[in-house]
């Protein structure tokens, strides 16, 4: 089983990436762990993902760093929202 990871708005542009599919390895058991693994993909990823204002969602609900992940989850990272 895989994790699906989505990026939006400015973050999507910075990473030049909209969707990733990752194998759900044993260590990727929280949103924070996934974020660290993504940041290790290279300097651009590290820079973009260290922004403390980024929001996170798991299965389309807002999440926290400690939110647990399971195989098949859809995880998203995005900047603070600006609708309305």
């Amino acid at each position, binding site marked *: 089983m895989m994790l699906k990871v989505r990026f*939006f*708005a400015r973050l999507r542009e910075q990473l030049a990436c909209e969707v990733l599919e990752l194998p759900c390895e044993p260590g990727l058991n929280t949103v924070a762990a996934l974020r660290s693994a993504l940041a290790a993909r290279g300097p651009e990823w590290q820079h973009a993902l260290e922004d403390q*204002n980024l*929001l996170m*969602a798991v299965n389309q609900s*807002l999440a926290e760093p400690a939110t647990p992940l399971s195989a098949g989850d859809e995880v998203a990272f995005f900047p603070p929202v600006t*609708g*309305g």
Partner: protein
Amino acid sequence: MSADGCQVQVQEAAFNPDQLQCLLPAGGAVVTFTGNVRDVSAAGAVHALQLEHYPGMTERSLQAIAAEATARWSLRAAHILHRVGRIEAGEAIVWVGVCADHRGEAFAACEFIMDALKTRAPFWKKEHGAQDARWVEARDSDISRAERWQLTRTGDTGLGPCG
């Protein structure tokens, strides 16, 4: 209230705020909010906005916000309509309509919905000016307004009767 008292809609098409209030029940107090695209921002002239969103989560998020409003206040209806895609300056981008027996509840719920939407619903604005395009920065004032309701951005609370 009945489950169909909460209605949320996300659409690309332009809409006319004058055609929306008639869809609400005619309770004692109706409060509506319409947000229009302004032709200037802190960053300069604005010709149009491009609204990116997170399909699926957007609808869930708006539904949860409407449901939370109906759980906090005694409402007959709460409708939210939000556009995505390209929106020209002067056009409406969001409409919220709330119906309640009493005006205090209708005002509070409508303002709550907007404050929650501004901090929790996954929309992102890109401004198109004469020469360039730039992402709109989130405003601290929106966060502090949301905090008045003791909203946390991770606080997708239990769903109310519409959830």
